[in-house]
């Protein structure tokens, strides 16, 4: 298994796109931290990168990579290797490279420029988001054989989580503003990994506002040790469940 991971990892490195992604992240992070003497702007830039760019790149790159390596997968399948092992190695190889790209590109400048709870939380959350969207890519690529359709599903997934979901939540908030929906809203966030990630960072970044009335509801849940654990558990589930479903499908798939 380690050898397959190694092969995939090296293959992705040879691809150069991930290297470019790393470079762009690094450029963006270092320059936004260097722009001003306080780290607030840099943190906001990286927050937007985590919530927007990282999911997009992770899901698109992983989907396309999976479609392009279908011949390689078929070749591997002809060998005496378990299907589960192949699929898992692919997942680990891709996740590893996306996480490494994020960590080197954005994580290191974060830890250098903001070595506090905000920075550490952002690094952890960024890595988790990378893995989650690689897992979602696995799901979308296994759903259909058609490459264009698969990539389309990936883009739709990303659009849904990055934009549509928040729009829906906003709509719900204003439709039901007469009702005590705060607690329900906390539960709703569990349905989007990006929202979970955002709120965890928000609690560190905008701690003053979160101590106020409006944030208190979220602080009371997400701010506690249990809330933190629960939301991280949900984030992990967001990586595990899509991958697990794709694995099931892959095992029984007629290639």
């Amino acid at each position: 298994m380690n050898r397959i991971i190694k092969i995939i990892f090296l293959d992705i490195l040879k691809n150069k796109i991930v290297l470019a992604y790393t470079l762009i992240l690094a450029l963006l992070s270092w320059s936004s931290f260097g722009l001003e003497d306080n780290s607030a702007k840099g943190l906001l830039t990286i927050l937007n990168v985590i919530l927007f760019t990282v999911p997009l790149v992770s899901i698109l790159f992983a989907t396309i990579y999976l479609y392009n390596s279908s011949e390689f997968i078929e070749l591997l399948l002809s060998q005496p290797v378990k299907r589960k092992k192949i699929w898992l190695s692919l997942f680990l190889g891709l996740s590893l490279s996306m996480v490494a790209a994020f960590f080197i590109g954005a994580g290191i400048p974060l830890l250098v420029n903001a070595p506090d709870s905000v920075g550490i939380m952002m690094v952890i959350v960024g890595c988790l988001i990378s893995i989650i969207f690689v897992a979602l890519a696995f799901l979308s690529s296994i759903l259909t054989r058609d490459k264009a359709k698969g990539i389309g599903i990936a883009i739709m997934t990303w659009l849904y989580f990055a934009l549509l979901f928040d729009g829906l939540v906003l709509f719900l908030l204003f439709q039901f503003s007469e009702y005590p929906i705060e607690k329900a809203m906390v539960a709703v966030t569990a349905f989007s990994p990006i929202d979970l990630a955002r709120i965890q960072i928000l609690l560190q970044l905008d701690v003053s506002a979160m101590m106020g009335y409006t944030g208190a509801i979220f602080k009371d849940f997400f701010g506690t040790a249990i809330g933190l654990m629960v939301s991280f558990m949900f984030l992990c589930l967001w990586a595990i469940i899509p991958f697990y479903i794709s694995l099931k499908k892959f095992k029984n798939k007629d290639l």
Partner: protein
Amino acid sequence: MKNIIFFFLLFSFFLQAKVIEVGINKPLKSIKKAIALAKVDDTILVYKGIYKEGNISINKKITFLGISYPTLDGQKKYEVLSIKADGVIVQGFKVINSGYGTLEDPCGIKVYNRKNVVIQNNILDNNFFGIYIQNGTNCIIKNNKIKASGKQEQLIGNGIHCWKSDSLQVTANTISGHRDGIYFEFVTNSVIWRNISTHNVRYGLHFMFSNDDAYISNVFKNNGAGVAVMFTRRVKMFNNYFEENWGDAAYGLFLKEISDSYIIGNKFSRNTSGIHMEGTSRILVEKNIFEANGWGMKIQASCMENIIKNNNFVGNTFDISTNGSLVLNTFDGNYWDKYEGYDLDKNGVGDVPFRPLSLFAVLTENNPSAMLLFRSFMITLLDKSEKILPSITPDNFIDKTPLMHSLSL
């Protein structure tokens, strides 16, 4: 020369003659007896030890000095020290365990309707009220360390409580754990200078109906609800620090019905709200720093003719928020770190006006749970379009001369 020395010796001889010593190893062991023996202008020296004499009342003009902090213990039953004469000086005592009462407000040290009293360099520990000036004039409260560990508002009194007084000086005291650190009601022409008020249950400083006062260079940190200044005219608030006042209804500085006042050179950092203004008018807010607050300023629509100029707004979640569409205040020449305009003529002033009120600040004001969506991409997009074409936010909420660089304050 000889004459002068002679006079000096004579003078010091007189001084010496009027010193009464109290201590465990001294002939006189009771403070009450010493006060009874003393005449006007005498000095009572109290040496180290624990004195449990119930209520000690000073009813003549004496100097009451403690040597290496003798402890006056109220045993949780009595008011410890009552001052009922003009010109008394109390210095160097450790006053502990005053009684608790809701009708009489027993205190560590209380001044009753007197002038020119000086209370300095004392340590007050675990009292109901710390120092209480009732109808005092020209009194000085200086360098005292006042501490309590109140948990509930109704079970603890104020650190320094001043009522119906004039010309007080409250200087360099450290207060923590009381209900209000410093409380002023009907106090005029007074100054609060260089005090540190932290971890009080309610307010660091509470100000009511106290005209023509100034508070300068104080630190108010981590109090239950910050600082409240209410129903007052002509207050000067200079160079204070308002920090880490966090919570539901916590404000760095809460202003209610204030007029003709000045807020200059203060620093508001890491508060839920830096300044909350309600019904204030003709206030000048100048050269302050608002840093890392949840809301820099909340200006309710009931405020008018306030001028907010030359301040730095840096790293706040929201710089400004309001609850209506009426804007009768002026913003001028502030630095906003959220400003994204340009400066073609390089004069340091941005060429496009800045709208400090974000759409999302208005949204959360109407629907608090919307905070859940803060910093999401969707909201950022909405905010951007609102900045270009204001429809929900009042369009005259505007700084026409935003600065390109932060002021060095």
